[in-house]
């Protein structure tokens, strides 16, 4: 029950309260670039959610078992190489290299999968599919997981469930924001926007108002935590 409540809290926090786009400002480039039509935005959101989950899974596994200070696999190899030494095996300096590698590979894998099984979808994505590699949201999810797995005492370390909850619902929050934005921009195209503000400028101002709306969720996690306790 406590585990479930912590998963719910992480999910709501990642999707609504600390929304990746509207609070942490990650994933802004596709948010501004792809959000002109609702169906494209939804497709992009789903693709990002998919990639973020795969990348989070791989990052968690690699961080927990290989990269963090005192990780099992690294320690085992270290014991073989210099038995009886005092030092702790710590490969965490390689974290960022490994994560970006994992993300690039995940995107590559998704690309190959789509090209083989859903060619029309693959074609409609065009250039935007490989650009998911530079989507800050995915690396951000990996970094958040790293924060709770690497350098943290064993009792507080996040397990795979929490990491996946963060990643998946972060992607859901991203999808929510991008679809809302697309809906608003579809309507904005029919409005009389001043010439200087047309394009990304008005999109940013509207996002600001959307971010203000999402600020209404502040504090929901604390009260929910008190309720679930």
């Amino acid at each position, binding site marked *: 029950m406590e585990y479930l409540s912590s998963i719910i809290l992480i999910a709501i926090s990642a999707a609504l309260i600390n929304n990746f786009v*509207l*609070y*942490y*400002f*990650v*994933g*802004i*480039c596709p948010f*501004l670039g792809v959000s002109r039509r609702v169906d494209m935005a939804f497709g992009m959101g789903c693709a990002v959610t998919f990639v973020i989950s795969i990348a989070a899974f791989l990052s968690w596994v690699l961080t927990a078992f290989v990269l963090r200070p005192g990780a099992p696999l690294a320690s085992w190899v270290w014991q073989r190489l210099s038995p009886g030494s005092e030092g702790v095996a710590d490969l965490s*300096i*390689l*974290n*960022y*290299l490994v994560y*970006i*590698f994992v993300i*690039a590979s995940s995107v590559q894998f998704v690309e190959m999968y789509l090209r083989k099984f859903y060619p029309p979808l693959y074609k409609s994505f065009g250039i935007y599919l490989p650009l998911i*590699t*530079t*989507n*800050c949201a995915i*690396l*951000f999810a990996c*970094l*958040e997981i790293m*924060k709770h797995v690497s350098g943290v005492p064993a009792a507080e370390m996040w397990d795979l469930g929490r990491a996946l909850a963060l990643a998946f619902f972060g992607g859901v929050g991203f999808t929510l924001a991008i679809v809302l934005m697309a809906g608003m921009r579809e309507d904005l195209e029919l409005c009389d926007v*001043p*010439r*200087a*503000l*047309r394009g*990304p*400028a*008005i*999109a*940013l*101002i509207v*996002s*600001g*108002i959307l*971010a*203000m709306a999402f*600020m209404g969720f502040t504090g929901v996690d604390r009260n929910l935590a008190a309720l679930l306790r």
Partner: protein
Amino acid sequence: MPDARTAAAETSSDGGPSAAERFLNGILPENPTYRQMLGMCPTLAITNGMRSAMTMAGAVLFVLVCANVMVSLIRGLLKPHLRILVFTLTIAAFVTIVDRLLAAYMYAMSKQLGPYVPLIIVNCIIISRCEVCAAKQSVPTAIADAVGQSLGFALGLASIATVREILGAGTWFGLPVLPAAWPAWVIMVLPPGAFITLGLLMGGVNWFLARRQTARG
């Protein structure tokens, strides 16, 4: 203001824009924030104070210069399929270095910048400069390009951070510039303030450029 392209008429030996051109282009004509619209994530996230904004600009300068130099040195060896991967690995390595340097020498600032320093890895500015300039031109040109683009980025960050910090906290670089009676517009240091400030400033830049265009032609 004379266009940078006509001012520095020499091209570099590899046929692309010269070092001086690259440098000047990066500051205003191809400003990463307002013209290319790259690197939006730190532009919105880090600009609630001038100090963190300038630290981030310094970190980006370091990574951009190092990455450009590295890519320019190995530009003859790059294969088309794997070059993006090579760029990304290079950038990730230098970002790790700058992250560690910040944690070692500016610990409080590094905690404030948080996850946004490693996010420099996926900052489109750096990958785009590697692709457009460093992979094709010599080291001095690449360095000039990196410095110019970083200055442009710093300019963009400073413009937004100034507005947000002065209106949102009444300070600039942490020093009070508005009288204590000023009711701080807290919304400015919160996420909505970032979006709205950038949107309005972008609109302002577009308006100014449009006026200059009609004044000329």
